[in-house]
């Protein structure tokens, strides 16, 4: 915008100034405004497509998301899984390490869990299998995060592109093992593992937890609080923010930047491993190349929209999962395609991303007197 001036040789009509003094409530007002605006746009699109009353449609969405105890638990499970991966990528992002490889790290964690359940399910006692599942899935996720971190730390290899490629390598490895372990040779599907013994299943007795999602929600809840304190009050969390702000400052302050990068990515990968373990051992009891289901990418947006604050991430992931479940209900009711929820998610994210501009910058219009001259 400012660039137009040079060509015309005139004063710009307005210019953009960075601001840091916006009070908290005002910035949240802007964000809420953006969400409301996006919901209105979504409503317009829904009316154009279905020709129905928008209020009724949002009613359908609410019913689809929280209409019954089963649906509420399914919503909570969706939020927990998305939140867990968002928590995982956050320390890396705070360090300005763009870990977009969460999808692959989750899959590798899930693969570790699957391997333990299949290989040791028949031979070892069930509690021991569960311990193995937890340890191995965390290690698998951590290793998948560690590989790009080492190359970033020592050779400054572009981590965005590296982690992106690692996703697809992980997907192919999982496809390979789904063939190897498929229940009927060649159909490429692993049936529910250890149905009879429940070895390696992470679960509460059905009398407490009717739908099987409660333990996942509790674990992720605990992780959220832990991550909040780790980032905000621990020495390591502080080091992460310093490296993220300026690597040179960090070096000058005596922080070992390489060590921080590697350590943080191990944590990030390990948490993704936990997410994979919760998906495989705590929910599906099997694995497909689609187990992560794109959450690794959505989680990046969740984390970023919440300004890397774990407590706000609960809200952003709730918003996104709520809209997805609601949009799925609309597509079922009106016979539309299921991908409708992706469109809705995309529009909401565009608006929130756009609103950040008005929080970080203010537009100063040129004073009237100057124009008169």
């Amino acid at each position, binding site marked *: 915008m400012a660039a137009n001036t*040079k060509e015309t040789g005139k004063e710009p009509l307005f210019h953009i100034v960075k601001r840091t003094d916006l009070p908290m409530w005002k910035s949240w007002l802007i964000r809420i405004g953006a969400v409301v605006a996006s919901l209105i746009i979504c409503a317009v699109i829904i009316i154009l*497509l279905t020709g129905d009353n928008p209020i009724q449609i949002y009613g359908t969405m609410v019913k689809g998301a929280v209409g019954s105890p089963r649906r509420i638990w399914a919503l909570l499970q969706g939020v927990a899984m998305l939140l867990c991966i968002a928590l995982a990528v956050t320390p890396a992002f705070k360090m300005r390490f*763009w870990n977009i490889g969460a999808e692959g790290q989750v899959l590798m964690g899930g693969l570790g869990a699957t391997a333990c359940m299949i290989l040791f399910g028949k031979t070892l006692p069930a509690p021991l299998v569960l311990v193995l599942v937890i340890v191995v899935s965390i290690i698998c996720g951590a290793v998948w995060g560690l590989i790009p971190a080492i190359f970033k730390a020592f050779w400054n290899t572009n981590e965005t*592109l590296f982690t992106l490629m690692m996703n697809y*390598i992980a997907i192919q490895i999982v496809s390979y093992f789904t063939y190897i372990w498929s229940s009927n040779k060649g159909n490429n599907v692993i049936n529910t593992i250890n149905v009879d013994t429940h070895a390696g299943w992470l679960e509460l007795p059905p009398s407490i937890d009717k739908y099987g999602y409660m333990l996942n929600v509790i674990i992720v809840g605990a992780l959220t609080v832990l991550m909040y304190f780790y980032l905000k009050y621990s020495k390591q969390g502080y080091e992460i923010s310093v490296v993220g702000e300026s690597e040179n400052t960090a070096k000058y302050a005596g922080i070992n930047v390489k060590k921080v990068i590697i350590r943080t990515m191990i944590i990030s990968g390990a948490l993704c491993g936990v997410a994979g373990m919760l998906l495989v051992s705590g929910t599906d009891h099997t694995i497909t190349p689609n187990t992560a289901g794109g959450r690794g990418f959505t989680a990046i947006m969740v984390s970023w929209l919440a300004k890397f604050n774990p407590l706000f991430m609960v809200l952003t992931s709730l918003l996104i999962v709520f809209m997805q479940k609601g949009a799925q209900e609309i597509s079922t009711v009106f016979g539309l395609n299921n*991908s409708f929820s992706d469109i809705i998610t*995309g529009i909401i994210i565009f608006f929130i991303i756009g609103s950040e501009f008005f929080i970080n910058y203010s537009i100063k219009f040129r004073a009237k007197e100057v124009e008169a001259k």
Partner: protein
Amino acid sequence: MIAAFIHRAVMQGVPLLFGATGEIVTEKSGNLNLGIPGVMYVGGISGVIGAFLYENSLADKSQANGFLAIMIPLVCCLLGSLLMGLIYSFLTTTLRANQNVTGLAITTFGVGLGNFFGGSLIKIVGADVPSITLSTTSKFFSASLPFADNLGWFGEIFLSYGFLAYLAVVIAIVTSLFLKKTRTGLNLRAVGENPATADAGGISVTKYKYLATCIGSMIAGMGGLYYVMDYVSGVWSNDGFGDRGWLAIALVIFTVWKPNFAIIGSILFGGLYIVHNYLNQFFPAIPVNMSTQELIKMAPYVVTVLVLIINSMRKKRENQPPEALGLPYFREDR
């Protein structure tokens, strides 16, 4: 048999070549557009919508006009992908949003848009056809030179493709020359390497970023169009395009940001993408089962990672990503 393999590899490679050329133009301006997979979906579905409306407006499908049958989907495709490029540029350049987050949102949105219209177009338009099958328009897209069949292996390898395949090669060569030989290309590279210096030198950073991203998106969108109209003969299937968009981004790294290398690279990647189907024919002595094929499909990504690592270790100046790739530029922020 080898000619047939190369023929298929080239057909696999063309969407990748479009995507990679588009992404190179975009990245040279410093914008890391991770929305390319979404843009390619939108390019494909926009073309499908155009072709679908055109075919349904015809009373008799044999009366289809070749010029209109090609231009309507092509223009729709360009407009659709231009729109996605504009959304990306507006959010990242004007509103200075984070490029990774914006790009991923574009991908979610674009893939969703493609699958949604692919699945619901018939219902929305209210047409009485069972599925989207655009064989009439597709025939014009995949028409190859009439004498290609008479020339044996030479015809099969070089002359047997629809016009979009040759367009992809031409665009890649033109882009390569543009970046290397022209003043504007030099300016574009300057914007991607160091926008502050470019700005001080009198180059409009905003204009270059917008133009490069939008033109890049339009080129990439044609990859989606080629896939639906030519490669799969006008039959849209949801998620059929698969991970080719990410493979195109991988190809950008593999060819170290050089569109002329991408021509060979795309055929190589296309070959790696389908080689698992041919291994049993080439080497009957070594049986390759289904599970190993999954590992072979990993090859393009592994090769890309290796190229990325080797380039970062060798630190050769001309093989590095644009210096300011992924960073927003704000003039007053120095």
